[in-house]
């Protein structure tokens, strides 16, 4: 294994072209993350057309640079102007902006930068260690288990992506339906083509994704004429000299917070659809609860910057673990990466790391190396960011809309793909306006074909539909799907309600059942812990109810 890592490392780190592409990607990501109204996902989606002519490892390394850069870029605008560049840097502004206003912009940026770096490094180590193990576990999965895992991925996306679960489910179903259009994978029969040869080929993933996400976002950005004509940021900032040494010392001194926040980030990333936007707030909240000087939070606390920034970069590693090991995207960005791999005829799954070790470890190393580029390019990107923020949004949007058309055309050299992008752009725009979350739809489009293929394989292998309930992994994922569907109700329930009191312990007890069925000693121990903890919580809450 060590020689494969070395070879993969050499293919990334000793190739000047790959390194150059990664540097450009990281710079683009830093800028995309810093500009409010742009998201990391949009940055990665717009990079995708450039990667068609590259080798898979070069393409993925470039996108990895955009991903890592984007996660750290958000801190620049958040700290210097108080407006977070991306949702994953919202919590960074809580203490970053006050620290800048207190006259310490160099230290604030340094803390953000080095927390992101160390958070990313911790998650890179976990990624290399955990992804192959998880992939090994994934080899146990049959089509029943895979189908249930996809259902779980979709339900958790729905439950985490918005207030209105019905709209989330509808969005997910529309995504699944969009994936059905065109020739069916198993029999090659045309579906919903309405006589068109173009539709018969199905909707390519990239035009759908660019339309739904980038096109619709740009239309929303120019909606308000006054805002569209104004420079991107009303508040401007001066170039700052980052205080690296002091920041590194402070981050290392607060190592408990760093590790706790990084692990929160990794765990959140592993959950399908729960990205950096959730992890940075969770980590900030935990850091505040654990801090001795809670009153300092919100006024420029060091821990208040370390927690969200280390968590959001660590989330990327977590999301990559799921994508690389099981082929299930952890968030929209990894969904795009999955699409990029598919364009290069590579389908990640449990056997991916074994079948394509050079590529898999190359991605791990690219993730690792991108953090060094991120640190090195931050000062330069800060200058560029200050220049870009003078451009009005309508100028950027018009140019990027044209770029989207050119990029989409480059995929198959057919104009129909641009029409598809436009159609899905219009759909995405109105979905945004009507309060439909886009994440479930995107995941539906990405996972639709996989879901159909697995259910077809399952039914083709056996007529026994009960296998979905009797196979431990399948049952486990279906129960997880039910738990995730109930999660929004738990969040909205009052603290004193019976449902809120029993949700967590009952979920633990129920999930222990399939783990017991798996039979292996480790899983049985985990199941016993879950069952005992759940029972203890139920007992404790029953006693407290009786006392009242």
């Amino acid at each position, binding site marked *: 294994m060590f020689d494969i890592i070395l070879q993969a490392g050499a293919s990334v780190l000793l190739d000047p072209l790959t390194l150059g592409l990664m540097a450009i990607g990281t710079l683009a990501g830093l800028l995309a993350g810093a500009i409010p109204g742009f998201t990391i996902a949009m940055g990665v989606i717009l990079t995708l057309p450039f990667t068609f*002519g590259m080798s898979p490892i070069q393409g993925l390394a470039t996108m990895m640079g955009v991903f890592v850069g984007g996660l750290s870029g958000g801190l620049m605008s958040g700290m210097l102007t108080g407006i977070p560049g991306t949702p994953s840097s919202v919590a960074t502004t809580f203490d970053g902006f006050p620290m800048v206003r207190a006259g310490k912009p160099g230290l604030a940026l340094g803390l953000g930068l080095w927390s992101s770096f160390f958070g990313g490094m911790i998650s890179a180590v976990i990624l290399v260690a955990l992804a192959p193990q998880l992939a090994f576990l994934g080899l146990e999965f049959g089509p029943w288990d895979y189908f249930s895992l996809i259902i779980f991925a979709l339900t958790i996306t729905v439950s985490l992506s918005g207030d209105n679960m019905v709209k989330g489910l509808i969005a997910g179903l529309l995504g699944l339906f969009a994936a*059905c259009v065109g020739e069916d994978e198993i029999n090659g029969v045309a579906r*919903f083509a309405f006589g068109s040869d173009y539709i018969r080929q199905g909707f390519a993933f990239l035009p759908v994704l660019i339309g739904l996400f980038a096109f619709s976002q740009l239309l929303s950005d120019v909606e308000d004429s006054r805002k*569209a004509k104004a420079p991107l940021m009303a508040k401007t900032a001066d170039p700052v000299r980052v205080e690296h040494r002091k920041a590194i010392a402070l981050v290392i001194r607060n190592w408990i917070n760093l590790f706790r926040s990084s692990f929160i980030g990794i765990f959140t990333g592993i959950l399908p659809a729960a990205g950096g936007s959730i992890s940075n707030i969770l980590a900030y909240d935990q850091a505040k609860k654990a801090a001795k000087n809670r009153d300092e939070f919100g006024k420029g606390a060091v821990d208040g910057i370390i927690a969200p920034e280390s968590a959001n970069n660590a989330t990327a590693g977590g999301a990559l673990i799921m994508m690389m090991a099981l082929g299930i995207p952890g968030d929209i960005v990894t969904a795009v990466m999955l699409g990029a791999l598919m364009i290069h005829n590579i389908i990640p799954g449990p056997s991916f790391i074994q079948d394509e070790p050079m590529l898999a470890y190359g991605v791990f190393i690219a993730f690792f190396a991108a953090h060094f580029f991120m640190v090195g390019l931050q000062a330069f990107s800060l200058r560029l960011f200050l220049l870009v923020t003078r451009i009005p949004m*309508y100028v950027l949007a018009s140019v990027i809309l044209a*770029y989207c058309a*050119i990029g989409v055309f*480059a995929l198959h050299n057919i*104009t129909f793909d641009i029409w598809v992008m436009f159609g899905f752009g219009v759909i995405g725009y109105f979905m945004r306006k009507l309060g439909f979350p886009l994440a479930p739809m995107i995941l539906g489009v990405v996972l639709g074909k996989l879901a159909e293929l697995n*259910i077809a394989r399952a039914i083709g292998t056996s007529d026994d539909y009960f296998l979905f309930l009797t196979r431990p992994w399948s049952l486990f994922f279906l129960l997880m799907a039910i738990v995730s569907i109930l999660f929004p109700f738990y969040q909205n329930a009052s603290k004193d309600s019976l449902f809120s009191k029993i949700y967590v312990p009952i979920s633990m007890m129920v999930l222990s059942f399939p783990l017991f069925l798996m039979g292996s000693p480790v899983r049985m121990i985990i199941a016993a812990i879950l069952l005992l903890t759940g029972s203890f919580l139920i007992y404790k809450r029953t006693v407290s109810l009786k006392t009242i």
Partner: protein
Amino acid sequence: MTNNKSDLIIAIFLLCFSGIMINDASNIRDLGFEGMKADAWPRVVLWMLVVMSSVMLGKSYFQFKTENHKDNSTFKINFSKFKNALLCFGMFIFFLSTLDYLGMLLGGIVFVFGLLTLLGGFSMKLGIKHLSISVLSIGFMWMVFTFGLRVMLPEGEILRVW
């Protein structure tokens, strides 16, 4: 347009859409092979869409009904709110429809210049600025894709004749 009103209309639209697609699913050919038929999975998805749309319809109808006692406003869509988006749609349709004639280079320049002018306003100074932005940006992208990535972008009949 209140949320419940729009939700009601969207739910009805989704039900109609699902109905049309379920009807079209009956046209999917059955090759007679063992295992799952080609129309099975789309039907499952569409029937679930029918169920969820019905839930949305019911929910928004009851909320709309209770709100209706207080609010008797008529159904209105504020087009001015969507003005810029509609301009983008219009320009994009124009760009796509003329792509075969103008090609990606000229069409792209016309699209970007048109959109910049529609969104940013027109004056002599702005016109020159918009023209330079459109020529430089599209020219750069066209060169990157044509010479860097070796993509054969549509040439357009005008340039071909010329």
